[in-house]
């Protein structure tokens, strides 16, 4: 897309990076349970809930459309195998889903790697108390 210019930080070297909208908010993430692992498991569970809900909606849409158009019987779905192009597309979609699901685990490592070098200017409490 011609209208999208790379952010300054990534424009210095290497191929132009397609800009993206951030998916994670800045700020301290609260811990709700005594064991942070529970927080992460719940985080993942809700993501799964959402994805399952979306998938059921989509399946419902497809089945209703197919029945309306008299194209397909339910048994045909059970016997279907993807062709290479379909398989590639499904792999990519599946990978994106797993990446998203696993963000809780990635964040764990990020926290370890980032350490405690957050600047005082990033402290939201200090920002409003001044």
């Amino acid at each position, binding site marked *: *897309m011609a209208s999208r210019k790379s952010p300054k930080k990534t424009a210095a070297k290497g191929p132009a990076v397609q800009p993206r*909208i951030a998916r994670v908010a*800045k*700020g301290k993430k609260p811990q*709700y349970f005594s064991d942070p692992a529970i927080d992460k498991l719940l985080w993942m569970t809700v993501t799964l809930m959402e994805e399952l*809900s979306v998938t059921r909606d989509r399946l419902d849409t497809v089945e209703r459309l197919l029945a309306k158009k008299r194209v397909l019987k339910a048994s045909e779905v059970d016997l279907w195998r993807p062709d290479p192009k379909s398989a590639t597309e499904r792999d990519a979609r599946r990978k994106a889903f797993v990446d998203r699901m696993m963000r809780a685990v990635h964040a764990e490592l990020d926290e370890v790697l980032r350490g405690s070098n957050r600047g005082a200017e990033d402290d939201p409490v200090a*920002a409003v108390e001044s």
Partner: protein
Amino acid sequence: MKGFKQHALLPTPQHDEQARQDFVGAFRGHLSGRVMPGNYQLFERRVAPRFAAEHGRTPADEQEIRECMTREPYYQFWSALQRRSQELLWESVIDPTEREWSTLITRARTAKRTKTRQRGSLRLDPSLAVPRYHTAADIHLQPGGYHTDFTADDVAAGAIYDKGINLYMGGALGSENDLMGNTLLAYLRERHPSQQPKRILDLGCAIGNSTVVWARAFPKAEVHGIDVGAPVLRYAHARAQALGVGIHFSQQNAERTDFADESFDLVISHIVLHETSKSALVRILAECRRLLKPGGLMLHLEIPRGRTPIEKFMHNWESYNNNETFSRYMTRIDLPAEARKAGFVGDEVSLQEFVPKIDVAQMNYTEHFFWKILVGRKDGAL
């Protein structure tokens, strides 16, 4: 959701994007309707009696309640799920926005050039320093907040906010997210019926969803909206153009604007003050007084933070968990006293309560809701 008005600056979700937004709506509806109220029962049946048995008295304040409640698994579950629902809300809106990103930017650029509505304008200031109360943490967990440009001429923050707040309140903000504007306008009409403002300033206007209400209500008035965020202002301007309303948007900090002394007869804000800071609050109120003509009116719509300690604790969930960092401090601030400190001396200053028309099922933290309005009238006659 139901009855939300589609306009040129809103992305149209595809099937799965819509399904995600539908899930967020269903999940948040369940949390606010079925899970959140249980916290009050938990407090009454278990937490308060235990506290009384141990200390021989009821919890004195919000902080004592916090210490007990945050140890309760039920509250922990609700909090963690509520937090995740907020993250999912933004994610579900960001995906379609990013997919239609370049189209939305092009539409906003075109709106800027439209000459048919001469009364509207957009003035950005790239040199404006975005205050730390915006940059330290993304307010309401919206990634990038109101101020981040992810690309040139970005409007994403505006599109995300527009659909996001619609989902946040399960559609209760109205077909054009106009509930706050309508509420404050209803207050003005009810309590100050003779007021016919000629110049109106909306502070922290974001996407101008409330500003539009005022411009429509007073078509002869010159209406201005300011905000520190460039992407929301680009969106606000284009959105107002799309809705056929002329508003002058400019990128300015409400703590100190470039408008002339005594140049407005009405200065308003809609749930903005609690997103600022202790020092910014006084500066904003002082700026309001400087901008008001003698006899001019200042109206700040604010969300109440509960009457009882448990209600206060529940309302301030937003502060600890949804990056409304300043709101817990504002709970303890005497707003009329701050206004007097800021120069409203010898002026009428008061904090009014105003009951809105909101479906109780949409309330996140309490079943009792009323707005608070900080009112200041600069001495003199218009």
